[in-house]
């Protein structure tokens, strides 16, 4: 089923991606073709197959719940555009 420009707008909003209006038909076409391409997976019989959870069939390693990091906030914040009093700034959320 081809994706409509409205579908693309919806997906772009879910992904918080600003897309120029002029580019929407192009993405609708590309994404429709990609989805049609991956739809061929439906032809594969996977009725008795468990989904892969890890390529090596291993489980996530756990570690003791201990503090291992030191505070480097000021170093990390050097990469931020808006910082004030050690906090990241964004446009006002609550009036």
């Amino acid at each position, binding site marked *: 089923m081809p994706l409509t420009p409205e579908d693309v707008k919806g997906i772009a909003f879910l*992904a918080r991606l600003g897309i*120029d209006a002029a580019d929407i038909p192009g993405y609708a076409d590309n994404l429709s073709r990609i989805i049609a391409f991956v739809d061929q*997976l439906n032809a594969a019989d996977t009725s008795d197959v468990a989904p892969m959870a890890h390529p090596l069939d291993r489980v996530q390693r756990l570690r003791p719940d201990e503090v291992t990091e030191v505070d480097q906030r000021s170093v990390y914040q050097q990469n931020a555009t808006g910082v004030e009093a050690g906090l990241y700034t964004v446009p006002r959320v609550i009036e």
Partner: protein
Amino acid sequence: MTLAQMAAALVRGDITSTELTTDYLDRIQRFNPKLNAFVTVIADEALAAAANADKKIKAGEGGRLTGVPLAHKDIFCTAGVRTTCGSRMLDNFVSPYDATIVERLNAAGMVLLGKTNMDEFAMGSSNETSYYGPVRNPWDLERVPGGSSGGSAAAVAARLAPAATGTDTGGSIRQPAALSGITGLKPTYGRVSRYGMIAFASSLDQAGTLTATAEDAALLLNQMAAFDPKDSTSVDEAVPDYVAGLDKPVKGMKIGVPREFFDEGLDAGVEKAVREALEVYRDMGAEIVDVSLPNLGLSVPTYYVVAPAECSSNLSRFDGVRFGYRCDDPKDLTDLYTRSRGEGFGAEVKRRIMTGAYVLSAGYYDAYYLKAQKTRQLIAADFKRAFEQVDVLMGPTTPTPAFGIGEKSDDPITMYLNDIYTIGANLAGLPALSAPMGFVNDLPVGLHIIGNYFDEAGILAAAHQYQLQTDWHTRSPKGFA
């Protein structure tokens, strides 16, 4: 001069790291404008590191790789040197820390020349999606070097660096290595630490090497492979001496040749080169066995569900708040997110994020993501069955030699199909490499060697023994003397 020869010459005192580094920096200055292989060159830092390495070597404190220059793909975080990932999103990003492999290669005394160009966030097979422009193939400047580690491949092929790091999610080391005429190794999933390597698709990504020879790859892997508690997918398995393992003879080795690798779509010249390479192995005493990977055809569509799904999740961290690009004058928080991401990411990255958001969205998750994780299991099972019969698998790395810049960029599906032979190893988590095996229309093509889990030593030995019998890996492109 290979990495191995260079390392030996440094230890003997025949050459200094300062001389070597100066020579490579000169070559970068002369030839990089033609190739666009480097995004960042750090001449002053490199010369300082070289001087330091020379002191160590003189004092007898040098290791096997001390003083040897290299380049990192710009996906690996380097403290104090910007890390762009080929994206406007990270054009201004200077990492506060080193990736584990950067740290390990620094500790070995290697000299970093700079950071190499790549497809944006490693999403591409041609290096055309980089914010910094396409990289050109040194064998033909109108053609792509492959991708996403295209800058690393072109740099090593044109001898602007003796070795470079890369990452491989669906073929991003092996495919550019093949199209650029060098050796590219993707280790087993979890073999090399990914700490500080910017994530694309976490169940597939793996770091590896781009070098002239398999011996060089073994030298680097010896230093790179290690358990890393900072990477939760890093595997705590013993690391053999890959250089010592290179002498393992091919005699008696069982080589599986998957018949599906020779189906429609394979260029006749590439097929001929593979058949000739297999003859070299037969002459060395290997047994060639016909095998089947019946679900190979599912690998590209499986990948284009799994990889975009994981990418849409991983790239949600780029929100314009803590680091990376931020749009001008956002009117509210949603505007800040959407415009920063809309302006900061290029078209292919947006396509993949949206594909991922779609296949993960409510009502579609079972039909796409869950289904793909099941077909992935079928693909992995094919490989497991094949490795019950044989020691390694061989075939072509790519269906064709390098294509023209712009030739496939209009149609994502045509571009995606370029990775048909390489994606399977990522989906299954297997180690694989590409080694030069000849030329088609004066363009290099690669022999793909896939190994069983953690058998990097086996595939490196197979490639090394082939390189002792052939000289394809010694050829270099004209115009870069």
